[in-house]
C-alpha cells in the first residue's frame, strides 16, 4: 500500500498541477512532492533491516493473459532509492520555482509524473511492470529536455531517447525469452531461482547489459549523457544524474547479478575493464572540459564506473560500496548541477572561462559549493569518500592492480573538480557580470543546505544508510555463490 502511494501520489499530484494552471501549479507541485516524500518515510522507519527479503509487498493480478502482476516490494537494495528519488523531487520543484517561466504547469507535471514512475522502477517485482516504468520515464524526460532545454536541445533529446530505447528493446527480447524459459512467469523472484545454461546466461546477460549499460552509462555507450546533461534544464540534469543514472546500476543488481551469476562471473573481467576505463579514461576526459555541466556529466560517468566496478567484485565491500556510491552520487551530482544552475540563472553561461572570482560576490554560495566539490573529489567526511573507499577496499581483496587503477580516481577527481572550482570561484573578479552577482536567495539556500546536510551526514555517519543494505546484499552474494547451471 505504501509503495503504491509512493508511486501514485506524485503522479496524481502531477496531473493536479497540470489542471491547476500556470499560477497555482507550483504550490500544488510542492505540496505533491512533499506528500510524496512523506509517504516514503514510513518505508524506512518500518523497514526490518534483518530481513533480506522483499517488504511492503503488494501483489495483484494485472494482465492474467500473460501472467503479469502488479507486484511491488522493496528490499535493502531498492529502499534507499525510493527515498532518494522522493527527496530529490522536492528540491527539483523548489529549484525551478522562479527559473522556469514558460509552461510552468507542464514542467512541474512532467517532474512529478517522472518521480512516481521512477519509484515504480525501484519497487517493481514483476519484469513487465519494471519495464513499463523503466520505459515510461523516457517520455517525461524527453519532453523536459526538449521543451525547457538549451539551444541544442532537440538533438540531445532525440539522442537520449533513441539510445535508451535501443538498450531497452534488447532487454525486452531477453525478458520474453526468460518468460518462456520460466514456463510463463514474469516474477523477478522466480527468475532469480531459474536454472540456466551458461550459454543462455551469457546471451541474456548481454541483452540486459545493453539496456543497463546505456542507462548507467558505461563507457563506450556514455556519449548521450554529456549532451543530455548540457542541454537539459537544471531540474532535468538533477533528476537525470541523481536518479535516472541509478536505474541502470540498479538493474544490474536486480537482474543481471542474481539471474545470471555464472555469466556475471565469467564476464566480470569485461565489466571490470569497462569500469576501469570509465574511471581512468573518462576522468582524464573530464579534466579538459570547458563547459561546467559537461564536466560534471563526465565526472558522473567516471563515478558510475565505481559503482559497476563495485558490483562485479562479488564481495560485500564492493556491492555495498557501489550502492553507497550511488546514493552519494545522487546527492553530490544533484548539488553540483544545482550550483551550476544557480550561476547559470544569473550569468546565462556555463563556460568556465566566463567566470572567475565568484567568491568575492557570492561568499555563501562559494562555501557551499566548496563542500560539494570536496565531496565530488571524494574527500573524507563527505559522502563521496565512503563509497569510493569501500569499493577500493573490495577491489584490493580481488586484485591489487584493479584497486590501484581505481584509486587513481582520487587524483583525477580532485584534479578536475577542484581545478574547475578554482577557476570559477577563486581569483580576481573576472568581469563586470561577475562583479554584479547577487548571493544565494533564501530559496536556493534552503535547497543547497538540505543537500549539504545530507552529504555531510552520510560522510560522517553512514550507518543509517548501510545498515538497511547488509541483509539484502549478503543474501545476494550468498545466492550468487551457488552456480545456476
Amino acid at each position, binding site marked *: 500500500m505504501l509503495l503504491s502511494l509512493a508511486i501514485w501520489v506524485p503522479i496524481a499530484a502531477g496531473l493536479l498541477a497540470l489542471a491547476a494552471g500556470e499560477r497555482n501549479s507550483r504550490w500544488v507541485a510542492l505540496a505533491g512532492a512533499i506528500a510524496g516524500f512523506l509517504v516514503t518515510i514510513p518505508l524506512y522507519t518500518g523497514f526490518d533491516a534483518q530481513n533480506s527479503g522483499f517488504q511492503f509487498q503488494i501483489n495483484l493480478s494485472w494482465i492474467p*493473459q500473460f501472467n503479469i502482476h502488479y507486484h511491488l516490494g522493496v528490499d535493502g537494495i531498492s529502499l534507499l532509492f525510493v527515498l532518494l528519488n522522493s527527496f530529490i523531487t522536492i528540491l527539483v520543484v523548489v529549484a525551478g520555482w522562479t527559473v522556469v517561466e514558460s509552461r510552468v504547469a*507542464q514542467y512541474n507535471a512532467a517532474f512529478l509524473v517522472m518521480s512516481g514512475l521512477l519509484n515504480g522502477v525501484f519497487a517493481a517485482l514483476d519484469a513487465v511492470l519494471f519495464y513499463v516504468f523503466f520505459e*515510461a520515464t523516457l517520455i517525461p524526460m524527453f*519532453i523536459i529536455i526538449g521543451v525547457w532545454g538549451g539551444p541544442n536541445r532537440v538533438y540531445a533529446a*532525440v539522442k537520449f531517447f533513441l539510445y535508451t530505447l535501443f538498450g531497452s528493446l534488447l532487454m525486452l527480447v531477453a525478458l520474453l525469452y526468460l518468460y518462456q524459459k520460466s514456463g510463463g512467469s514474469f516474477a523477478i523472484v522466480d527468475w532469480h531461482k531459474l536454472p540456466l545454461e551458461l550459454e543462455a546466461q551469457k546471451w541474456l546477460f548481454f541483452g540486459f547489459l545493453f539496456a543497463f549499460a546505456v542507462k548507467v552509462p558505461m563507457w563506450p555507450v556514455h556519449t548521450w549523457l554529456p549532451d543530455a546533461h548540457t542541454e537539459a534544464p537544471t531540474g532535468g540534469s538533477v533528476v537525470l544524474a541523481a536518479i535516472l543514472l541509478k536505474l541502470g546500476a540498479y538493474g544490474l543488481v536486480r537482474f543481471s547479478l542474481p539471474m545470471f551469476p555464472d555469466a556475471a562471473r565469467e564476464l566480470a573481467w569485461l565489466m571490470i575493464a569497462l569500469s576501469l576505463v570509465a574511471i581512468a579514461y573518462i576522468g582524464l576526459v573530464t579534466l579538459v572540459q570547458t563547459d561546467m555541466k559537461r564536466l560534471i556529466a563526465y565526472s558522473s560517468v567516471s563515478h558510475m564506473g565505481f559503482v559497476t566496478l563495485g558490483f562485479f567484485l562479488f564481495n560485500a565491500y564492493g556491492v555495498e560500496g557501489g550502492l553507497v556510491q550511488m546514493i552519494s552520487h545522487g546527492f553530490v551530482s544533484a548539488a553540483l548541477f544545482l550550483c551550476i544552475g544557480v550561476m547559470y540563472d544569473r550569468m546565462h553561461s556555463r563556460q568556465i572561462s566566463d567566470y572567475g572570482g565568484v567568491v568575492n560576490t557570492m561568499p555563501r554560495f562559494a562555501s557551499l559549493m566548496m563542500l560539494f566539490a570536496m565531496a565530488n573529489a571524494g574527500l573524507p567526511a563527505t559522502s563521496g569518500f565512503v563509497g569510493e573507499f569501500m569499493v577500493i577496499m573490495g577491489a584490493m581483496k580481488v586484485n591489487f592492480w584493479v584497486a590501484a587503477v581505481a584509486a587513481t580516481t582520487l587524483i583525477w577527481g580532485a584534479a578536475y573538480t577542484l581545478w574547475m572550482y578554482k577557476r570559477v570561484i577563486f581569483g580576481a573578479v573576472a568581469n563586470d557580470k561577475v562583479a554584479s552577482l547577487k548571493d544565494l536567495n533564501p530559496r536556493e539556500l534552503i535547497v543547497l543546505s538540505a543537500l549539504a546536510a545530507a552529504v555531510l551526514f552520510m560522510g560522517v555517519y553512514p550507518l543509517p544508510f548501510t545498515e538497511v543494505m547488509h541483509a539484502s546484499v549478503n543474501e545476494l552474494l550468498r545466492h550468487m555463490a551457488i552456480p545456476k547451471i
Partner: protein
Amino acid sequence: MNLAVLLDHLPAAPEMILLAGACAVMIVDLYVKSERRTLSLALAQVVLAACALTTVVVLALSGGSKYYLFHGLFIADFMSHVLKLACYLAAWAALVYSRQWLLDRGLLRGEFITLLLFALLGMMVMISASSFLTVYLGLELMSLCLYAMVALNRDSVASTEAAMKYFVLGALSSGLLLYGMSMIYGATGTLDIPQVARAVAKLSASASDRSFLVFGLVFVVAGLAFKVGVVPFHMWIPDVYHGAPTPVTLVISAGPKLAAFAMAIRLLVNGLPALAADWQQMLALLALASMALGNIVAIAQSNLKRMLAYSAIGHMGFMLLGLLSGVVDGNTRNAVDAYTAALFYALVYAIMSVGAFGMLLYLSRAGFDCENLEDMRGLNRRSPWTAFLMLLVMFSLTGVPPTAGFYAKLAVISAAVSAGYLWLAVAAVMFSLVGAFYYLRVVKLMYFDDPVDTTPLERRIGFGALLSANSLSLLLFGILPQPLMAVCFAAIIAL
C-alpha cells in the same frame, strides 16, 4: 417465411440490417436538399447503432459458439462479432471525423455515406466468410466501394491517379487470389473452408499433391499480402494513402485491415492449417521485409499521410509476426496465444490509425489540409490538449509503455520468441527502434518548436470528444490491457 427460419438467420441479421439501411440511406439522400446532409448522416449512424446492437444481441445469445448459415457460406463466431464491432466503431468515427472536412470542400455528398456503408458490408462479409466464394464476394464489394471513394474528389489529379492505381493493382491482386483459390479448389474439389481444411490435411501427406497445393498457396498468400499491404505487395499503399482525401484514407487504414486480418485467419488458419509450415515461412519473409522497408522509408517522408502509410506497412509486418508464430513443428500449442497477439495488434493498430488520421482532419480547416509534418509545428502552444492526444498516438505507434501499442508489440514479439523465431524478434525490436525516430519527430515538432501557423483551432465539441476518447483509449488500454486481451483470447479460442 416463418419465425423459426427468421431466428435461424439471426446471426446474419447485422448484415441484413446494414444492407437495408445502406439502401435506405441511398434513397433518402436523394431527397435531402441541405448541404449539411444532417438527415443522411443521422440515418447512417442509426443504422450503425442498430447493427452494433444486433451484433451484441447475437453475441449475447450465441455465447461464443459457432453458427454456419446459408449452407456453410457464412460463419458467425466470436471473432467475427468482435471484428465487426470494431469495424462499426471505425466507420462511425470516420463519419464523425470527416463531416466538417468534407463539408468545407463540397464533398459531403450521399455517395460518401452510402459507399462507406457498402464497404462496411463488404468487410463484414469478408469477416464472416466460410467459403472461398464468400471471401471473394466480400472482398470485391469492399474494394469496389473503396476505389470509388478514393476518387471521391474527381477534380483532384492526385485522387484520380491514386484511385486508378488502387483499382489496377487491386484487380491484379484479386486475380492472384482467385487463381490461388482455383488451384486449391482443383486439388480439394470444394470451396467450403472447413471442408478444404479436411481435404488438405489428407492431401498434404503426399508430396506431389502437396506441391500442387503449395503452388496455389503462394498465390493466395500474395493476394492476401496485397490486401494487408505488406512488402513486396505494398506499392499501392503510399500513393493511395497520400492521394485519397484524408477521410477516405482514414477509412482505408482501419476497417479493411481488420477485414484482411479476418481473411488471413479464415484462409490460412481455418482453411490451410496443414500447410502452416509453408505459409509461415512466406509470412516470415513478408513480415521482415515490411518491418524493414516500412520503418526505414517512413523516415524520408515529409508528408504525414505518406509517413503513416509507410508506418502502416511496418505495423502490418509486426501483425504478421503473430500470425506466423502459431504452429511450431506441427505443434499448435502456441497457436492460440500467437493469433490472439495478432488480433490484439490489428485492433490496437486500428485505434491508433483512426486516431492519427482523425487528428489530421481535426487540424484541417476550410482551405487548409493538415498533411505535412511541418503542419504539426508548435501544436503544444496552440492547443496543449490536442498535442497531448497526438503524443499518445505517436508513442503508442512507437510502442512505448504505458500505451496500448506497447502491449501489442509485447504480445507479437512474445509469440515470435516462444515459436523460436528469436532472430525475427530481435529484428522486430530493431526496426521498431528505427520507427521511433520518425514518430519522435512528430512529437518534437509539436512540443519543441514554435508554431508557424497560429490560426486558433476551431472548436468542434462532438469531434473533439470522440477524438479524445479515441486517443485516451490507447492510454486506458495501456494501463489496463486485460479486458481487450481477454476478448481477443476468447475470440481466437472459439475459432
